[in-house]
């Protein structure tokens, strides 16, 4: 936003000087003008329609979130059922947030979610990069078998195996623990395959030269592999983090003690067990939503860039 503001301010000035330079064809406008050529550009009217549509979709995409946020700040004097709906609370309060915290241990739920999501992100990056390097850049006996095993698991939706997965976790004595929630997700086959694709594009000569110069496997990984696969690694980290933060079915099955819940299971618990006021539930959902939105907004640059890289590579 800040980057586009100065350009927008300077535009009127340039508009005034434009007639003097009329013979010149303008190619700097983001729309097409008569004689400017450039069929890739939309016409001015087309551009306006495009922005109108973009704003309409924007409202559709964030409207429900804003409505929920507004509900979470509404006090007891606000009629939340009134029509037309009021987006700005008349009796604004933070009371709903303290009420959530008094009903369920929401801060420890948030901590549990953070712990699960953070562990999954770090473990997936480390383990998938290591495996991806071996599968993408090294030659060894049995590689095809290893690839085959990884690829075959893509045909297994997690839901199919979820009950016997829980039996495994229980056998390990990890039922009703956060460790049990994290353990199966520490490395995903799809992440290994993504990192394999990324490692395949590292020039073989570069790796061999480093090895001849006496670099250990660790040094090669740290100084040659890591810098060139960082983009894909950030996609893996972001997906793993969001996946861990948002997951519901698996923690629902593993955890039975309400003190150990993660945010998603805790939210459902709040909604179904306390006959809660919509305002209080709204405050709870905001606590689950806002951190992950901020997380994504901060890292979205890496995310979209990485997704683009992955698509080009194939």
């Amino acid at each position, binding site marked *: 936003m800040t980057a*586009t503001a100065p350009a927008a301010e300077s535009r009127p000035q340039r508009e005034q000087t434009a007639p003097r330079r009329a013979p010149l064809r303008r190619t700097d406008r*983001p729309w097409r003008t008569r004689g400017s050529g450039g*069929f890739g550009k939309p016409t001015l009217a087309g*551009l306006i329609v495009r922005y109108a*549509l*973009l704003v309409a979709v924007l409202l559709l*995409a*964030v409207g*429900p*979130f804003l*409505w929920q946020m507004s509900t979470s700040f509404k006090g007891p004097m606000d009629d939340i059922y009134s*029509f*037309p*709906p009021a987006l700005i609370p008349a009796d604004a309060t933070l009371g709903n947030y303290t009420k959530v915290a008094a009903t369920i241990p929401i801060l420890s739920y948030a901590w549990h979610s953070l712990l699960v999501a953070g562990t999954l992100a770090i473990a997936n990056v480390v*383990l998938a990069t290591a*495996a991806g390097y*071996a599968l993408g850049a*090294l*030659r*060894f006996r049995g*590689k095809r078998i*290893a690839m085959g*095993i990884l690829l*075959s*698991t*893509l045909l*297994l*939706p997690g*839901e*199919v*195996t*979820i*009950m*016997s*997965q829980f*039996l*495994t976790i229980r056998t390990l004595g990890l039922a009703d623990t956060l460790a049990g929630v994290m*353990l199966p997700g520490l*490395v995903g086959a*799809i992440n290994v395959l993504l990192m394999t694709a990324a490692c395949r594009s590292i020039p073989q000569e570069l790796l*061999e030269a480093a*090895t001849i110069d006496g670099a250990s*496997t660790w040094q090669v990984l740290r100084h040659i592999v890591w810098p060139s696969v960082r983009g894909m690694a950030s996609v893996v980290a972001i*997906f793993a983090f*969001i996946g861990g*933060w*948002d997951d*519901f079915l698996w923690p629902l099955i593993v955890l039975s003690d309400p003190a150990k819940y993660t945010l998603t299971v805790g939210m*459902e618990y709040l*909604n179904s067990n306390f006959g809660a006021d*919509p305002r209080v*539930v*709204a405050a709870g*959902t905001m606590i*689950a939503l806002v951190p992950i939105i901020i997380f*994504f907004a901060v890292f979205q640059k890496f995310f979209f860039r990485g*997704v*683009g890289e992955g*698509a*080009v590579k194939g």
Partner: protein
Amino acid sequence: MRTYTPYVPWLLVGPALLWVIVFALWPFLNTIILSFTDTRPLTGGVFIGLDNYAALLHDGRFWNAIVTSLVYAVACVPLLTFLPLLLALLVEKQIPGISAFRTTFYFPVIASVVVVGLIWTWLFDSRGVINESLEFIGLIDQPIPFLASRWGIMATAVLLTVWKGLGYYMVVYLAALGNVGRELHEAAAMDGASAARRFASVTVPGVRGAMFLVSALITVSAIRVFTELYVLTNGTGGPGGDAMSIVMLVQQVGGGLQGRLGYSSAISVVLFLLTIGPLLLVAYLNRQGGDAPSGKAAR
């Protein structure tokens, strides 16, 4: 030339391979084995042959769940195959501010289904803002009890899935659109082809592979639907448990200390058989076109 010790690659792949075997392949094998037994959590079980599968045939709840999941897929596939393509075309051009729009359109994707489900419960409440608005503009006299009937619950859940999935498949299509030649578009435009004509004759053929991929991915994730229906019905599956999906049934039958693990495993095997076709199609298309990020949804 090989300059590393032979066990190094196995040391690097080892952990990932071990994980996949212990937490995906073994549970799958175990699911198949359990489906031929009457196992319960604390007492174990014995081999009972095909009894679980035979019982499924006469279980009304099972057929209900199959219908729910399949109808869910039939409703989601067309909507989520076409709407995100249109959205991708809308955000494709590099115009000022477009990356902010793209990022924001992705917000619904990263929110948890539980969060969105609770927002939906509130929006579609009989006194919620949707009913109030419809009443206000005179479309209805009485609030529609969206969340009180099987089809009402499913329609609301489909709407949730579509709203939440738009941004995700938009990104998949954006990657595919990048490969559709710009020159082809410009040539068509210079020849005077209208926007609609260019969409039908240039864009759609160019992203046909991506459209197959997206619809296969949606089929799989719709058959696996769980959280949407769970949250919208507070885990009950709606009145009489009619809106219970296959995965909800697996969780309800197999969960808890009294869980019938053998029976729920048999349902899981059916779930696997329903998803394997589209998943093989996804694998085939990925091998052909190879867009890495699209395989993500298959978890």
